[in-house]
């Protein structure tokens, strides 16, 4: 529902026409999410159908149809802004599954697999960071959107680091344990006597 509510948010500032909405949407999401004008008009028609926006009568003679938010639209926008997105179910994460599988396979070096993904993620982060390096053309919406992406990728790198550390520790403990088990078995069988 992101486009629908983003357009409502733009309309809450005052009446606007379709092309203008598209330009403002792209500017405020830091040009990260291009939108075609068809999507804008389809969404506006639906907003009108649902009574959340209406055509501004004052400008009906003009070539462009100006849209205006209704009271119901204002309420809907306020409700949407405060409704948490559903994060309760963990997503089916392909990377997590790959590392879990790799950790079980004795002929695969799980640390090498982790490093392949870590490098790839850091390279992606370098690309994103380059985008905000240009201080002169600082754009708040763009910086926020890039930060969100960097934090998301960073969380994945941190998970890989944690997995790396946990696997290393567990493998060390297991090998010490198996040494102790071997010694115990050897004692029982009299091999050490």
């Amino acid at each position, binding site marked *: *529902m*992101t*486009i629908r509510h*983003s357009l409502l948010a733009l309309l809450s500032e005052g009446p606007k026409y379709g092309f203008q909405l598209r330009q403002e949407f792209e500017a405020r*999401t830091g*040009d*990260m*999410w*291009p939108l075609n004008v068809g999507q804008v008009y389809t969404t506006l028609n639906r907003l009108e159908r649902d009574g959340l926006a209406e055509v501004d009568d004052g400008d009906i003679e003009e070539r462009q149809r100006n849209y205006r938010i209704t009271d119901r639209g204002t309420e809907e926008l306020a409700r949407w802004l405060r409704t948490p*997105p559903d994060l309760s179910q963990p997503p089916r994460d392909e990377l997590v599954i790959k590392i879990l599988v790799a950790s079980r396979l004795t002929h695969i070096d799980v*640390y090498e697999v982790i*490093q392949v993904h*870590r*490098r790839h*993620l*850091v*390279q992606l*982060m*370098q*690309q*994103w*960071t*380059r*985008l905000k*390096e240009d*201080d002169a053309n600082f754009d708040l919406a763009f910086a926020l959107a890039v*930060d969100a992406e*960097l*934090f998301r*990728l*960073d969380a994945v*790198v*941190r998970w890989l*680091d944690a997995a*790396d*550390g946990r696997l290393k520790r567990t493998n060390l403990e297991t090998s010490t344990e198996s040494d102790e088990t071997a010694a115990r078995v050897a004692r029982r069988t009299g091999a050490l006597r």
Partner: protein
Amino acid sequence: MSMLELRRVSKVFGEGSTEVDALSNIDLTIERGSLVAIMGPSGSGKSTLLTIAGTLELPTSGDVLIDRKNVVAMSRDDKARLRRRTIGYVFQDFNLLAGLTAVENVALPLELDGMSLKQARAHGMAALEELGLADRAQRFPDELSGGERQRVAIARAVVGDRSLLLADEPSGALDSVNGEAVMRMILAACHQGVAALVVTHDAKLASWADRVIFLRDGVAVDETLPPARPEDLLGSATTPPTL
């Protein structure tokens, strides 16, 4: 032109049965103007690598060249001079002297190197101005915020024409916006020809670097490829979530 070059550098701590290989055969070259980050978990040898690059410690074997001069064969005095004139350090906990004002802290390395007080202060002020701290020059460290203290520490590291900047977790306990400001300053120094080496476990900091080297148990196991064009990220696969 290479500013720092490590050639098959190894470092062993302890002897006999307690011997630990802190670094094994590290090859690393950093050109003037470039920023290299070393990433690795605690105990991977990051800080050892930095102290060797900063001539604070000698490698067990291998060579360290700074500005194409081999440090391993250098006298103590020559190394001390190199540290005062060529190398700037930024530490996690800033290491500013509490009894000196910001500008006195920044000017200190130049004064120690024999520059007149007046001249050293002038250079110190210039460095602070560059980092937007001119109005904080007369404050003592405990009168500055964490972000400001770290900026003073960076000013001290680049003051007078220092050409090699070494930083150990330079954003320390700063929040991410201040941490980013620190990396922007280091990058700005690089754009003026400084070579910088940053060690960190933080991928967000490391991603400011031209090149990221991954260290594991004292071995450089991997490094990033030259980054693809950032523009490729825009408007490609990214559509608004849950359209």
